[in-house]
């Protein structure tokens, strides 16, 4: 849905997005990475299984919850990428600690 204008700093980090290695600009949020990497959704809802994607981008709507480094329910728009970070779409209510999707 989004692309990056050609002004960004050259510094990049590599993250795992749904199991695929992606090089992304350092200092961006996980939500911005998901939207520029072409993910059409980032979670499904626990109630009906409907697809959702980042919505407010400022931490108030909680619609961008993803599994980040194994921890579910993380706001992708409030989390900044780090080298080697594992980012996954969250299905429903997410995982309880120690469980894998």
């Amino acid at each position, binding site marked *: *849905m989004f692309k990056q204008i050609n002004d960004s700093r050259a510094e990049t980090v590599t993250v795992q997005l749904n199991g695929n290695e992606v090089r992304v600009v350092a200092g961006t949020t996980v939500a911005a990475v998901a939207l520029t990497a072409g993910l059409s959704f980032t979670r499904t809802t626990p109630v009906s299984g409907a697809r959702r*994607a980042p*919505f*407010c981008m*400022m*931490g108030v*709507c909680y*619609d961008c919850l993803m599994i980040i480094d194994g921890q579910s329910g993380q706001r992708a728009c409030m989390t900044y990428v780090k080298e080697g970070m594992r980012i996954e779409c969250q299905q429903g209510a997410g995982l309880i600690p120690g469980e894998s999707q």
Partner: protein
Amino acid sequence: MNNHYQMLVIGGGPAGLAAATIAANSGVSCALLDEQPAPGGQIYRAVEQAPELRAQLLGADYQRGKSLVENFRASRAVYFPNTSVWSVNEQREVGVNYQGDSRIITADHILIASGAMERPVPFTGWTLPGVMYAGSGQILFKSAGAIPEKGVVLAGSGPLLLLLAWQYMRAGVKIKAMLDMTPLGNRIMALPELPRALLAYQYLTKGMTLQRELKQAGVEIKNLVSDLRAEGDGQLERVCYRHRGREHTIETDLLMTHFGVIPHVWLTQAAGCRHLWNESQQCWHPQHDEWGATSIEGIFVAGDGAGIFGAKSAEYAGYLAGLQMSYAAGAVTRGERNQQAIVYRKAMKRDRHIRPFLESYFHIPREILAVQNNDTVVCRCEEITAGQIREAVANGHQDSNQVKYFTRCGMGPCQGRQCAQAVAHIVADAGGKSVSGQSCFRGRPPVTPLNLEQLAQMKRRQR
């Protein structure tokens, strides 16, 4: 991070930065807690890091934030980035998440400068991936240089819509449609406010310049649009609307809407500050005096979190609150406080002349706020529809909080931030009452996520 400060500022937007700077410069020990990694708030987000080209595209008003941030950096205020506040109470104990740890710190005086958020206005399909707020588009632009790839449809009513369209136009984004949903009657209602608005003519001039430049670039603004709907299978595919008595459909993978902004009151709510409904601004805000003091002693508010007046007024209100807190801390005398306040009061008064006009012109009609289509999801978290809310009212639940307990709307992870207003409007509408008599959902700590591990460790450390 110390266990105690004379003054704690929550929020790194213009109000928080101004307050912390003026207080620290007068010798108050002051810390600023910011959820973001760098100062600026949403309005000046990433203003220090934004590359030249990006800052240029965003315009001069955005770049104004640079000096504000520089002055703050040069002050002796201590800055804590990536720090969230999950509780504030009457004893001025502040629950803080900092570097993965949770702790409680205290302060003599607290300024809550939580800023604004987009006014959530539910419409059919607004939960689909590809539907976002205009503010979300701006945040992506400012902080990541990310812009729509295959064009965008903009819809709603409010000045930010125009600004974003202009910024996108300059960045070469295809604006597939610009759908202005401001009703005709608003122009007439706003007319009596125009003479006063002329005293802050720079805002009117800016609005007209943006409109003219958009027109020159071939972006057509469709006026008096109604019945906005988003459709698609699992993601946005098209936007439907009514214009001049006819139905229209546009194919798009991105729709950004804007219906004005409202104060983000969850922290002041959770702290127990008294809140009022402002009919002109169509929102709740914490009650406060001319210095920003709330109904709780030692807790202040400033900026859009106290009521919507825009970035410049937020800055002036921040200075005023900072002065009052410096006075309360004994760092300045009453005379010094009053003397220094004059210039900020004057500037604030001048800046606010535009507000009555904007509030009337962009007043969102009741039928939009009260969500007419009963199939529309109102609570995004618990997926409760307008029809379910009306049914609860018909069953005798005449108050927002009662409807919440009965239906679960507002009980999801966002704690009602996205549905509180719509629920209040629907409940008022269904019960034939005014929204001013409705209660806002009660906010409770933790206001931001706090996991059990952090909570448990906090107890152990403090034992």
